[in-house]
């Protein structure tokens, strides 16, 4: 009995498989107008109205699932779009940062050439590592030190990349270690820079205004000297003929522009000036590591 069942099962299975293979072979061998193709078309003709009816009847169900699928898909698209947006935003920020950095570095390059060629002073470019967080913003730390030839009391120039009048003297090296140095900015009360107007009609000493480090003044201007509004102030360089009294700053480094003069024409006249460089927005500086002709 068992054998009979098994034999029958195997026979039917074999018959079905052979039928399938015969169908496949016949379907492949016959032309498009063959019997099997005609049967297929006949079945399609019978079934297609049923399919159409079923398709219409089930349209709300399809729409429901389609809506769910679209919603899920739209959520995925939204997520992708947000990811793309974040990537582009990051890229844009990088580009903006690079453009600003580029402007500052270009400014430094131009600073080497105008108004005087600074290449003889062997400028060393360094990145600003640390900014003093105080209101006075008096010191910065830069990324190069004695290993790059930087020593105390060397002048430091920079540009803030803001366009015209964006470059000039910003301070002096306070101390240096192997790979870092601290720069005292001209806004620090301990810094005083011998200066003159670019037209050389007046001389004085630039230092921060007492009680207001963001306002610089040009002190010790003689009564006979004439300082006009908007006059450009530059470093004076060494004046003394003595070799043991050289200035720390080379001549003609731009410092700032006169904004107003109080008590003009008197012995107490006091020009106020604005620095060319906004020291809060400096990313790169150059340290002039060599004196030329004792800064005369």
């Amino acid at each position, binding site marked *: 009995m068992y054998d009979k069942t098994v034999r029958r099962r195997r026979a039917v*299975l074999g018959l079905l*498989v052979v039928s399938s*293979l015969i169908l*496949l072979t016949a379907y492949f061998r016959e032309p498009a107008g063959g019997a099997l193709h005609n049967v297929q*078309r006949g079945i*399609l003709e019978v079934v297609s109205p049923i*399919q*159409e009816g079923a398709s219409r009847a089930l349209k709300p169900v399809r729409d429901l699932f389609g809506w769910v699928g679209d919603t899920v898909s739209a959520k995925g698209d939204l997520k992708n779009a947000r990811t793309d947006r974040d990537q582009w935003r990051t890229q844009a920020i990088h580009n903006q940062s690079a453009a600003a950095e580029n402007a500052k570095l270009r400014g430094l390059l131009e600073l080497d050439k105008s108004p005087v060629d600074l290449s003889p002073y062997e400028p060393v470019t360094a990145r600003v590592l640390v900014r003093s967080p105080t209101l006075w913003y008096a010191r910065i730390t830069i990324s190069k030190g004695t290993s790059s030839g930087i020593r105390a009391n060397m002048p430091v120039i920079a540009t803030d990349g803001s366009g015209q009048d964006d470059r000039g003297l910003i301070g002096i090296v306070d101390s240096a270690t192997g790979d870092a140095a601290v720069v005292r900015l001209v806004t620090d009360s301990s810094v005083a820079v011998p200066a003159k107007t670019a037209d050389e009609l007046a001389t004085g000493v630039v230092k921060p205004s007492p009680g207001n480090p963001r306002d610089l003044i040009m002190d010790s201007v003689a009564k006979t000297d004439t300082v006009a509004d908007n006059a450009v102030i530059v470093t004076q360089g060494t004046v003394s003929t003595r070799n043991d009294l050289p200035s720390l700053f080379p001549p003609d480094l731009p410092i700032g522009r006169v904004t107003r003069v109080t008590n003009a024409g008197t012995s107490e006249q006091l020009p106020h000036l604005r620095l060319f460089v906004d020291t809060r927005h400096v990313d790169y500086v150059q340290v002039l590591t060599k004196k030329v002709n004792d800064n005369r």
Partner: protein
Amino acid sequence: MPAVTPKLLLRIVLLGLGVVLLQVAAVSQIVIFGASADLTPLVVAGVGLLCGSLSGAVFGFGVGLFFDAALLQTMGLTSFVFILVGYGAGRLRELRDPQAVAVPMIVGALATAISTFGYGLMSFMLGNDTPVSFLLLRVILATIILNAIISLPVFALVRRWLGPVLPEDPRRRRRRRAYTTGGLSPLTRA
């Protein structure tokens, strides 16, 4: 193998026609996670599990033939694949008769995998330009997962549709009596 009564035969034929029409007219047009569910291998496997290997194979052959005809596909291709699905599910029932809750899911996933990969392989062997790509594999995988998820309700519906006309299986009747009357466990037979 349970004896096929006229009522059972009628229900099986109606089930085959209905599932192909439902698949072609509606289910194949519903896309979820980039893939559509395929009811046909699930129903073929369900019939195999309920009615046995021979009935499963015959049902698979019939459903495949109707499916190929309705979609103007190569006649005999789907039939061949579904014979394997129906027969395999039926043999599983005859040899093991698994009763675990997860059986429909596992059988459904296997049936879908055999039908999709088998159809692709047969098409490839017959020289059809079947595009083999990672996208296709992803869609096949999604279909298998989708079918595994819906296999429980599909198997339940098939059981509900065929159950009233299925003849009583003597083996199951014996097992049920043994458990409920405190008789010997089937394990002791060994």
